[in-house]
């Protein structure tokens, strides 16, 4: 199948998902065209909204870029949520600990802490899979829950805003130092440096995967661990590496969520989505939709970012619950995954026989 035709498959999947979405809007008694217009308006209706869309897409892109590494190495990382939280916690701790460092030192340090925190949270299931054959799907999901509880504990106890101790005990940190805030790109909007960081990260992932021996090994292990081992590669080490790198990028998403936020603090609502906005899961969707290619994940993340911001407008204008956006996400995944099946089926059916 040609590359061009390959690109049409996800687009077709998206189209089908939108048709289903239209049916759902119809079922709710609204005009789907109005719905679509509301989404577009919500996502791109003003400079501010475009900025919001980009900001929304940023953690998706970071998580998604990481996911491409893991999935290319045949490691199914569903632990984006936990890795985001781990990265956010460690970077926040650094900012709380060293608030007086100059920005030029503190910001890189905070970013590094996010990478390390997320990477560590990814390395755990990586090591469990590599050396104890623990299924990484299960362990990453479970570590999501562990991370949430760790966050709840830290934000209610050691890291809580001192004001809240006397006050309402809202589980959140104090406002972090401006020295650690991600610089704003365009004054008056929320567009911050994290967007550029994410795009750079995606490009770097692409370079690593296809232009370096490290990525070569990850892909070899992903496609055929037996052949990789026979060729002298250390399969276990590469599994750990894949999950660590994947987790590190999710950790960076955690940094962006905290240090790119207006409130500039880490807040929990007791669950995970309150802080992450489900970026750890939506990033997987974005990566799958981007064909597990880090560069295609860039437009894919922006598409899903616009869907998420647009859904807010949909809710405001037409009183359609923004759960519809979540349903659309799911439908797109369903169609993308099944279109892969369809592709395989087409190949089997009409490909050259032996």
């Amino acid at each position, binding site marked *: 199948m040609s590359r061009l035709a390959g690109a049409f498959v996800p687009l077709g999947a998206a189209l089908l998902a939108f048709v289903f979405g239209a049916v759902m809007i119809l079922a709710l008694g609204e005009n789907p065209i109005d719905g679509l217009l509301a989404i577009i308006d919500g996502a791109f209706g003003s400079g501010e909204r475009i900025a919001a869309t980009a900001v929304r897409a940023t953690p998706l892109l970071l998580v998604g870029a990481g996911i491409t590494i893991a999935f290319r190495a045949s490691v199914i990382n569903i632990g984006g949520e936990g890795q985001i939280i781990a990265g956010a916690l460690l970077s926040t701790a650094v900012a709380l600990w060293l608030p007086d460092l100059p920005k030029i030192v503190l910001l890189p340090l905070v970013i590094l802490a996010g990478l390390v925190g997320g990477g560590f949270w990814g390395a755990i299931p990586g090591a469990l899979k590599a050396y104890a054959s623990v299924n990484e799907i299960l362990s990453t999901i479970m570590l999501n829950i562990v991370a949430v509880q760790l966050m709840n504990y830290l934000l209610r106890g050691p890291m809580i805003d001192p004001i809240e101790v006397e006050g309402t005990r809202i589980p959140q940190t104090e406002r972090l130092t401006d020295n650690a805030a991600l610089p704003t790109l365009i004054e008056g909007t929320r567009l911050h440096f994290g967007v550029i960081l994410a795009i750079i990260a995606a490009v770097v992932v692409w370079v690593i995967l296809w232009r370096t021996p490290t990525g*070569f*090994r990850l892909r*070899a292990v992903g*496609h055929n661990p037996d052949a990789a081992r*026979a060729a002298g590669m250390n399969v276990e080490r590469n599994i750990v590496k894949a999950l660590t790198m994947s987790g590190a990028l999710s950790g960076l998403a955690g940094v962006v969520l905290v240090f790119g936020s207006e409130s500039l603090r880490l807040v929990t609502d007791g669950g995970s989505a309150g802080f992450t906005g489900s970026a750890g899961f939506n990033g997987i969707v974005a990566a799958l939709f981007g064909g597990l290619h880090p560069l295609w994940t860039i437009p894919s993340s922006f598409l899903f970012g616009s869907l998420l911001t647009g859904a807010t407008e949909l809710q405001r204008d037409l009183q359609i619950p923004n759960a519809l956006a979540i349903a659309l996400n799911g439908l797109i995944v369903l169609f993308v995954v099944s279109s892969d099946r369809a592709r395989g089926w087409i190949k089997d059916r009409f490909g*050259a026989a032996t």
Partner: protein
Amino acid sequence: MTTSTPLLELRGITKRFPGVLANDDVSFDVRTGEVHALLGENGAGKSTLMKILFGLYQADEGQIMLRGEEATITSPTSAIEQRVGMVHQHFMLVPTLTVVENVALGLHDARKLRPDLDAVGARIREISEEYGLEVDPDIDVWKLSVGERQRVEIIKALYRDAELLVLDEPTAVLTPQEVDDLFVILRQLTAAGTGIVFISHKLHEVLALSDRITVLRNGRVTGRTVPAETDRQQLAEMMVGREVDLAPDRPIVETGPVRLSVSGLHVTGDRGTPAVVDVDLDVRGGEILGIAGVSGNGQRELAEAIAGLRQLDRGSISIDGADTTGVTPGMARAAGLSYVPEERMKDGAVGEFDVAENLLLVDHGDSRFIRNGLFDRDQIETHAARLVEEYAVKTPTLHTPTSSLSGGNIQKLIMARELDSDPLVILAAQPTRGVDIGAAEYIHRRLVEQRGEGVAVLVISEDLDEVFALSDRIAVMFDGAVVKIFDRADATRESVGLAMTGVV
């Protein structure tokens, strides 16, 4: 023996697949009571032709005549109804069922809910006695040897009154002794009037068994002959379409120091039972040591232990004097080992990777290919282009997915990668299994070339022709042990074959 009307006549069969002409105007006939061999390389069209006969494919053109009348065969069931039987290369048996149950599987009798197994058993005994197909009907199939399972397959076909029996590469999995037994059975069948199509690429077997031989190449018939009028050389040339060199010249080479040493090696197999038992081997530089043996006698485990892919229980291994006992595959390679694994698509290459990437699978970290931390793509392309050229790997481009190449070309690619790294020891397991004669000839020449350069070569093969063509010494493995090591000059096909059954 023969009658005027052939039992089977295929007339001008043509079958096209997208981009491939699998059978081009092929005519082929079998008389009652004869063995007609169908000889050809992989992809020559043998299997396609037989699948048409068995109703798995439909011919685009041509006719199938059975007993002088045009037949329409739309499915295996209709083939069986018309008394055509097939023994597939990969047995179609349920291991957990008994012989009787396996034979009864798929028998249709609308009047009964389940077949009368006692009656089936009785009939199996009759067939067994008639043709010397000894097998206990009530035994579970998993307990049977490969040769016995094959007999069950033949019984299955005979039970369904097959008059024409197609055997697809039936000797591929058998020991030389089992092959002899099979031939006795097949001769009894032909004496009783069965017509047999014998598909093979093993030349000496075709010569020993057949009444007539038809050679296919690229979907076309390229030769029809009888054993008395031909020989291996001529048959090979008909198959390949050019002159071939079945046994490469092996110039006399001064052997060097011991490059690979295995001593007192014990290895446990996948089932937890001993697979390699107290094996001692020394291979010197400039020497090819062939390991003969029926598959499953510990060769694979021995190879994997040497390559660092399998834990060893006891014993030691050294490569070029360095102790490599229990090291990782990467360390074994660093010590000078090149490894051509038995299963090329599982262990030898990454199917999804392109040709250039697979050529880089071992040496991807080499500084030659890296500039400023990134792959030097020009160097990699140049390297790949050179190897593809030098090792005659037929591929449309350097960026073709490896899985779309033919088995022979994938094997040449693996050989290119493994031999180009200036190894001290080459471990090649089944280097030409499933590879066509042309590629096999080429691979053999390359191995002999390495021997000439002072490399120690260990070839593991189930193909005695290959072992005899290459080896300076022949070690025979049986039941995990090396039961005997022959000097090439003292080894005969008979003595080695006998040792393969454990008789020394």
